[in-house]
């Protein structure tokens, strides 16, 4: 079979949707996990705070590739039959929640302590102090770094190719094996990642600028 440049491009663009789906899934699940982890990280109990901190340090201090391997080979040990897409999703979620928790903690702690005091003075339970008073204000400053993290997340999905998830890079490997045109294929692969990530980078930069002006 003969592969033209357009065949290569078409197949890579089709595969890119799995990169995007995985990124979105990782962001949604990692965001939920990150929010919970952030709440634990600023909890009153030192034991809870320390456990959350250890989780974050563990995931930020070890390679994502090894985390993916541990999920891929670890889930079968507890009796789960793991497909690559599941291991990829779980691995990215665990890692993204650590990063997002740390980013959002920074935003929450950037607010003046008086906000907590004021919320407490209103008689709100600590959970509602966070939910009704702190988070809405923190959200404003959290948007630019969160968009910036999305770029990192999209890039890290490329590692899931190694555990066999058929996203953009792995499709590139397959096409390379069929066409023997690695220069073209990996060049296009890189440009597709760039086309997804660069607009996000620009958006993050613009949001940051707008925030610093406000």
């Amino acid at each position, binding site marked *: 079979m003969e592969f033209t440049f357009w065949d290569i491009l078409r197949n890579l663009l089709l595969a890119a949707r799995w990169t995007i789906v995985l990124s979105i899934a990782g962001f949604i699940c990692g965001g939920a996990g990150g929010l919970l982890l952030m709440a634990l990280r600023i909890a009153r109990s030192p034991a809870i705070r320390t456990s959350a901190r250890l989780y974050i340090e563990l995931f930020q201090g*070890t*390679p994502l590739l090894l985390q993916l391997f541990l999920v891929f*080979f670890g889930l079968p040990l507890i009796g789960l039959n793991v497909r690559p897409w599941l291991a990829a999703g779980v691995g990215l979620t665990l890692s993204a929640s650590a990063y997002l928790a740390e980013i959002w903690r920074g935003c929450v702690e950037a607010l003046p302590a008086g906000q907590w005091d004021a919320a407490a003075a209103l008689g709100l339970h600590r959970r509602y102090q966070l939910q009704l008073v702190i988070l809405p204000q923190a959200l404003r400053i959290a948007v630019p770094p969160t968009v910036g993290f999305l770029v990192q997340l999209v890039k890290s999905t490329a590692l899931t190719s190694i555990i066999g998830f058929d996203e953009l890079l792995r499709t590139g*490997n397959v096409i390379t094996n069929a066409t023997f045109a*690695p*220069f073209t294929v990996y060049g296009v692969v*890189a440009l597709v990642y760039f086309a997804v990530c660069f607009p996000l*980078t620009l958006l993050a930069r613009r949001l940051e600028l707008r925030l610093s002006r406000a």
Partner: protein
Amino acid sequence: MAGRPDFTWLEVYGVALLSGVVTTIELIVVTTLLSFVLSVLGAAARRSDVAWCRAAVGGYVELIRNTPFIAQLFFIYFGLPSLGLHLNAMPAAILAMTINLGAYGTEIVRAGLDAVAPGQNEAGRALGLRPPIIFLRIVLPQAMRAIFPALASQIVITMLESSVVSVIAVRDLTYQADLIQSRTFQAFRIYLLATLIYLALSVLLRRILGFSARRLFGAGVG
């Protein structure tokens, strides 16, 4: 075997694991040194008066920061031979890591140089010092003080990302772990051990970077 964890593989493969650790350390040390030079040159070019110089470095930085490291590695290792540039796995890994860290480093060093007051440069000139001396002895040390934490974090991130070079058969820590698990079928245990070694390496690396920065640029750094 019943109930007792089997660690005999550790005696057999401990040396292999250790040699993997040494390779990982080699990779990050060489990459850090090379990319520091690249970052300073890149930052200087990014601030130069020559427009095409600024644009070229800007393009390099954006291209690298907005694509995955593993795609860059594959492009260099599998793609460049089409242009006649054949690299062995280890030089290809070092080149990819250096280009990657250099792009982040360029932005970080540039921010640091921007933070140094212009008066420092002028004061150096008033003392009759030559521009390279002013840059190396006055401006750069002050910039380093401001950016050291960001630079150290990026170096640690690059060390962790270097696990990916095992895919092109560089015999680093991850490669050795792969090899051992394919022979012992104890994948989870071996990868867990390798993960913990990476964790220790990242803690250690941060300490060493802090120590050497204080020696190089004076107290108050790191």
